[in-house]
């Protein structure tokens, strides 16, 4: 079977509801096989309807517990839900512990919920390299709501905001003072901030502090004119473990999805940003792959050796390698 035939067979079965075919297809996409790529080419046109919700925040903040609670809430209205949960790969061995399912197993046997763990496999930014392609496959297979849970992030892993329609930043109580709340980075990309572990002492206060600081400067927004304006996210309090606050969060997500539907034609900025993130990532990968072709590999290694020996600067090296590919493309 050729890669294209395999892609066609898997894509057709997955779209027809065959969960095993879907799981196999996601592996092909994750492993960057020719069949995986062919399948995404085939399915991408059908992948525009789902609401992609990114969920990010520090390790242990409660992302998986919140996602599990939101999945349960969305299932009450009969919607099909998928989860892509990313955990880090070891930079040393390539191995990984993918532990997000621990909090989600109550949904494991629900046929309208599909949960898939992904190892980051060396990709920075809090996601795996193939996360958005995997989300496209799930969307094309009819999942209406897709949660993308990042690895536990620090202050600046904001990539998820460029691929999700809505970004939820999860913050546990007692994780810092008001100065943390006004720092640039992760909190700036939030469409919604959720303070988790809402049953703990200090949670209300953390939410109030975040609310206070995230609205600082709101009066100044208009004066920014055409310059990029900060988002002004709602701050909600939740306890995924005991279920409080969860319906309100899902309602806030649904309002965003509805607004997105209305404004889709008028404000394509977010869609363009997502397109750019996807294409830019693939461009980098393809350039790296072509440089490893036998016809270029010796030259690539020579150039790297020259940079390592400080005989050539990295800017010139990059320009020379790009020129090499361009000359190869013409010839």
């Amino acid at each position, binding site marked *: 079977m050729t890669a294209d035939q395999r892609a066609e067979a898997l894509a057709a079965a997955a779209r027809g509801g065959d969960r095993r075919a879907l799981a196999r297809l996601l592996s092909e996409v994750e492993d960057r096989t020719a069949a995986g790529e062919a399948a995404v080419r085939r399915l991408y046109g059908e992948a525009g309807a789902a609401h992609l919700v990114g969920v990010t925040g520090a390790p242990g903040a409660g992302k998986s517990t919140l996602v599990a609670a939101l999945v349960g809430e969305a299932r009450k209205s009969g919607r099909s839900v998928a989860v892509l949960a990313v955990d880090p790969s070891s930079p040393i061995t390539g191995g990984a512990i*993918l532990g997000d399912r621990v909090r989600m197993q109550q949904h494991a046997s629900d046929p309208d919920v599909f949960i898939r763990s992904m190892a980051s496999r060396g990709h920075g930014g809090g996601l795996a390299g193939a996360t958005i392609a995997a989300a496209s496959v799930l969307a094309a297979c009819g999942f209406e709501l897709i949660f993308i849970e990042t690895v536990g992030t620090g202050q600046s892993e904001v990539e998820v905001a460029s691929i999700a329609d809505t970004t939820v930043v999860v913050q546990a109580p007692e994780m810092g003072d008001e100065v943390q709340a006004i720092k640039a980075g992760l909190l700036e990309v939030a469409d919604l901030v959720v303070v988790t572990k809402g049953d703990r002492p200090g949670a209300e206060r953390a939410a109030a502090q975040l609310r206070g600081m995230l609205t600082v400067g709101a009066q100044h927004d208009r004066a920014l004119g055409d310059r990029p304006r900060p988002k002004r996210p709602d701050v909600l309090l939740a306890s995924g473990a005991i279920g409080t606050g969860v319906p309100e969060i899902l309602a806030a997500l649904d309002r965003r999805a509805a607004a997105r539907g209305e404004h889709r034609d008028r404000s394509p900025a977010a869609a363009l940003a997502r397109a750019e993130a996807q294409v830019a990532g693939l461009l980098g990968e393809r350039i790296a792959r072509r440089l490893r072709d036998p016809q270029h590999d010796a030259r690539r290694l020579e150039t790297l050796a020259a940079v390592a020996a400080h005989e050539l600067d990295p800017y010139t090296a990059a320009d020379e390698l790009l020129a090499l590919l361009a000359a190869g493309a013409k010839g």
Partner: protein
Amino acid sequence: MSERPIKVLIAKPGLDGHDRGAKVLARGLRDEGFEVIYTGLRQTPEMVVSAALQEDVDVVGLSILSGAHMTLLPRITDGLHEAGLDDVLVTAGGIIPDDDVPALEAAGVSRIFGPGTTIREVAEYIRGNVRSRER
């Protein structure tokens, strides 16, 4: 394409709460370069099967110390078979008497690791017996 890491599901079916061994093994297999999906305690056979299916794992490793292995493990291997996952390698560990091993092997558990097994032995067994991917 770079080599694909072997994906292993580590699950604890049934009601015993002793997960130290499963966690140590998960950690050890991580260090052997495997991608380990850990699902935690108190898994029903149905949960194990659907996690194996959704995650497209190569191996299901089951840790059981409750004595319910003769009930739970065949239900899992049957479930995997019904889900079309016959190419998934199933191993088990924990406290399983030698007398029960032949019946479990007949039910589709390919290898049972008893107390004293090293992580290296488990990793080498998996590498030597895991399915090869159709590509």
